């Protein structure tokens, strides 16, 4: 294991933990919980450690470790941030599940699936090769089918089936795109696409690879049409997995049908890691090789804008909390895709930051809805009301998350939306910028409706005895809210970090 690339550990450790959980879960379920949670905590601290190391520019990763030979997969800032987010969200969900499902059997399998999902997502964000990305994205998809349908009720099965039926063809589109990419670029790694590495020439690789630019790529400022087709096919596949209009059909059902903590995981990370991360990566690569305009970026902007609108309008009419949060997710992912489509460095930084923020606030909102479900027994907004007096912590953390989503200063959401709107304005896309601002107002509107209905207002009689959920369950949400507030206040520190990305 000498020269093992350290980021390999990010993938291998949770995978090993998953197997341990599955095997130990029968005899000693508490041990399984502990393993899962400790793994995630370890992951968070390792990610923070690497971020600080990387920021201090002390760390040159060995590009080709002995064990994982050729695929260089050390991260730049984006990957590190994603690793941190993955572990953060997984930890919050795992911690919540420990306290909520205290009497549940089959916990070994559940935590094993959870850790394996995290392992696969780490594989996604550290991969430097499109095919590796595809394999890990499939692994994430399989674990999430199982997690969505885990409870076994009809809603979970329906959500899982719809997700499967849209996600499997999307994977095939990604494969078609990869095959065309093999044809144009001679290989599937990011480096091959940017023309920096000639893949698979034998012995030179260990010392760092030859640098023979492939003449057909990027000879002008515009993209080669073949590469455009390849990346376009792949983008279609990844857009389905992110839940962007017009491929968003599976999102409301999957989020609603899954168990609430699983929905938190899905919304917080799976859509981001499996879908949007790849979209942003592709746009980053395109920015490197074709600084001129490109049709893919424009198409992404249109899809992003449509998602914002459909998500926002859809959310207004929903009556069930998880479904409304699903539509809100569609809308926020639309912001990310819109910014990614623009492609300027400012816009990409905004997209990445909004991705991180969205993970934090959606996770905390979904965990709060799980708390509501646990205490009050239902998530139907027509039946709930006036719970602020009974469940103050849940109410106030929800309000923090909602305000952050809507982009109210000084919370973190405000900064990311501001960057996106500024980037749009600077690049001359005034129409899109105005749209983004108006949609923010709409976001605020529907969240105010949600708050008013659920937390304030009159309390129906049946909920008079609702207790607050126990404090340990609240811990993840409190952590997330604290992060939101802290990131909002300490924004200049974050800014320098992002700009390097």
């Amino acid at each position: 294991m000498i020269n093992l690339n350290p980021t390999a550990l990010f993938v291998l450790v949770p995978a090993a933990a998953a197997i341990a959980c599955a095997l130990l879960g029968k005899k000693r379920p508490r041990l399984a919980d502990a393993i899962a949670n400790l793994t995630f905590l370890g992951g968070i601290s390792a990610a923070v450690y690497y971020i600080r190391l990387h920021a201090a520019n002390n760390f040159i990763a060995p590009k080709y470790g002995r064990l994982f030979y050729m695929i260089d997969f050390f991260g730049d800032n984006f990957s590190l941030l994603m690793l941190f987010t993955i572990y953060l969200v997984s930890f919050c969900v795992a911690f919540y599940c420990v306290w909520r499902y205290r009497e549940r059997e089959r916990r070994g399998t559940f935590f094993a699936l959870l850790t394996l999902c995290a392992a696969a997502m780490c594989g996604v964000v550290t991969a430097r090769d499109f095919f590796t990305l595809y394999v890990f994205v499939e692994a994430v998809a399989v674990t999430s089918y199982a997690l969505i349908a885990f409870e076994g009720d009809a809603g979970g099965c329906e959500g899982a089936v719809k997700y499967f039926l849209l996600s499997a063809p999307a994977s095939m589109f990604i494969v078609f795109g990869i095959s065309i990419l093999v044809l144009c670029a001679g290989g599937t790694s990011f480096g091959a696409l940017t023309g920096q590495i000639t893949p698979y020439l034998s012995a030179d690789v260990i010392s760092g690879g030859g640098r023979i630019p492939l003449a057909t790529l990027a000879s002008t400022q515009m993209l080669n049409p073949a590469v455009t087709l390849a990346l376009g096919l792949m983008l279609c596949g990844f857009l389905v997995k992110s839940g962007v209009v017009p491929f968003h059909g599976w999102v409301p059902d999957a989020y609603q049908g899954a168990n609430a903590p699983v929905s938190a995981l899905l919304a917080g990370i799976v859509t981001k890691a499996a879908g949007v991360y790849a979209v942003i990566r592709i746009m980053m690569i395109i920015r490197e090789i074709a600084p001129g305009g490109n049709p893919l970026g424009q198409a992404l902007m249109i899809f992003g804008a449509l998602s914002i609108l459909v998500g926002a309008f859809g959310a207004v009419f929903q009556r069930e909390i998880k479904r409304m949060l699903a539509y809100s997710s569609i809308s926020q992912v639309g912001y990310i895709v819109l910014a990614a489509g623009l492609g300027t460095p400012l816009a990409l930084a905004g997209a990445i930051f909004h991705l991180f923020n969205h993970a934090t606030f959606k996770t905390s909102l979904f965990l709060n809805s799980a708390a509501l479900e646990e205490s009050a027994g239902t998530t139907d907004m027509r039946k709930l009301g006036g719970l602020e007096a009974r469940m103050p912590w849940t109410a106030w953390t929800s309000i923090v998350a909602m305000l952050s989503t809507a982009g109210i200063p000084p919370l973190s959401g405000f900064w990311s939306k501001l960057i996106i709107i500024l980037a749009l304005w600077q690049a001359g896309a005034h129409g899109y910028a105005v749209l983004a601002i108006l949609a923010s107002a709409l976001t605020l509107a529907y969240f105010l409706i949600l708050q008013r209905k659920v937390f304030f207002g009159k309390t129906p009689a049946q909920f008079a005895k609702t207790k607050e959920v126990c404090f340990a369950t609240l811990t993840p949400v409190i952590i997330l809210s604290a992060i939101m507030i802290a990131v909002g206040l300490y924004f200049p520190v974050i800014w320098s970090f992002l700009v390097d990305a």
Partner: protein
Amino acid sequence: MHSLAQTWFFVALTAFCGIYCLLVSRNILRLMLGVDLLSKAGVLALVACGQALGNVDLSQALAVIMIGVEVVVMAVGLALAVRVYAKTGSLDVWKLNSLKG
């Protein structure tokens, strides 16, 4: 006609069969069939492009891994279909509309 164009033609036809199957079917198991047809088209596309490139070994390696991925996805999909049948008693995908509102 160039052999790559030929092979891509057949890839497109097979993919079309798969997508058609996905669009038209109601039975979940038949939908899985559509997914599998798409996977075959994908394997063919990978190997065809590798062959046109000259580096068949690379695309063989990719195809081998992809076939492994495909079988796991199919197995999980079929298990999901059986689970749906056990839950709701029918395999009709249009009947799965309990989540509303």
